[in-house]
């Protein structure tokens, strides 16, 4: 029993490479966040291509504005640590949080005012086999 205690104590005394562990955690966390952001940017781009009309495309673009940009910025903040750069990035993230919906609303409102009617009701992507058969759709 006493020996086991002694072993545990000597084991704990061995210095762990904390700086290295911290750097790895930082790299993994920021890399994960940036990858998540990149995924949502791509999803937004695919959405813009696939959506049927103007108003629905705005929603896809909104994904790029929020999750995409914010997560990439968060990842970069973690990447740069406690520096002036990360404070600036935090400011950018904050301003983006306020300005991007305003810009989206401006576009949607302009379309609404000029009389563009949205496609309403359930919609499903056309089947690949039906495209090019010339049935008029």
């Amino acid at each position, binding site marked *: 029993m006493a020996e086991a205690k002694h072993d545990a104590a000597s084991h704990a005394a061995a210095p762990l490479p904390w700086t290295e562990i911290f750097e790895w955690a930082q790299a993994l966390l920021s890399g994960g966040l940036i990858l998540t952001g990149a995924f949502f940017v791509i999803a937004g781009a695919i959405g813009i291509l696939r959506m049927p009309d103007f108003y629905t495309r705005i929603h896809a673009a909104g994904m790029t504005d929020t999750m995409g940009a914010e997560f990439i910025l968060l990842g970069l903040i973690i990447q740069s640590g406690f520096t002036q750069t990360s404070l600036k990035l935090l400011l950018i993230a904050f301003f983006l*949080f306020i300005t991007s919906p305003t810009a989206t609303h401006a576009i949607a409102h302009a379309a609404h005012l000029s009389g563009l009617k949205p496609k309403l009701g359930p919609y499903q992507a056309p089947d690949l086999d039906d495209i090019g058969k010339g049935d008029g759709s």
Partner: protein
Amino acid sequence: MKYALILGVTLAAYWLTLSGYFHKPLILFFGVMSVLFTLGLSARMKILDKETVPYVYIPKTLSYFVWLFNEVVKANVAVAKAVLSPELKISPSMIKVPTHQDTDIGKTMFANSITLTPGTVSVDMEEDGVLVHALLAEMANPDDFTEMGERSGWAVGEAIDISEPKTNG
């Protein structure tokens, strides 16, 4: 006077964050002058009031942003799923969401929050509500916006109690 002081401190902190000059007297002097110039302009425009310097709301607004970010993430996942699914099952609709906010800034906060959440975009402001274009069928229920409406009003200092848990998700 109180508002001028707080705005001055905020602007100085903002200037220091962006420039990062702490030990160049000439540049610092320029910074101080530009802060004073901005303060003078704001005083001349008579906009040194609660709305320009909303320091009272800052803790509430920040905690609201944390809640909103969580909602945004959830909505993002829903929209990304819909976009990437092969069938692309969407059901666009125009709904009218009633606004209960008393102040203009409360309404702005609410409409902006709706737009920030993917899948819903506020298209038009009317007297008694916001016209919202919703992408998915599960986002098209006006009652689901009640919590966001109350929280966004609370975030800019309206007397709304948000401690009561809401029954709907």
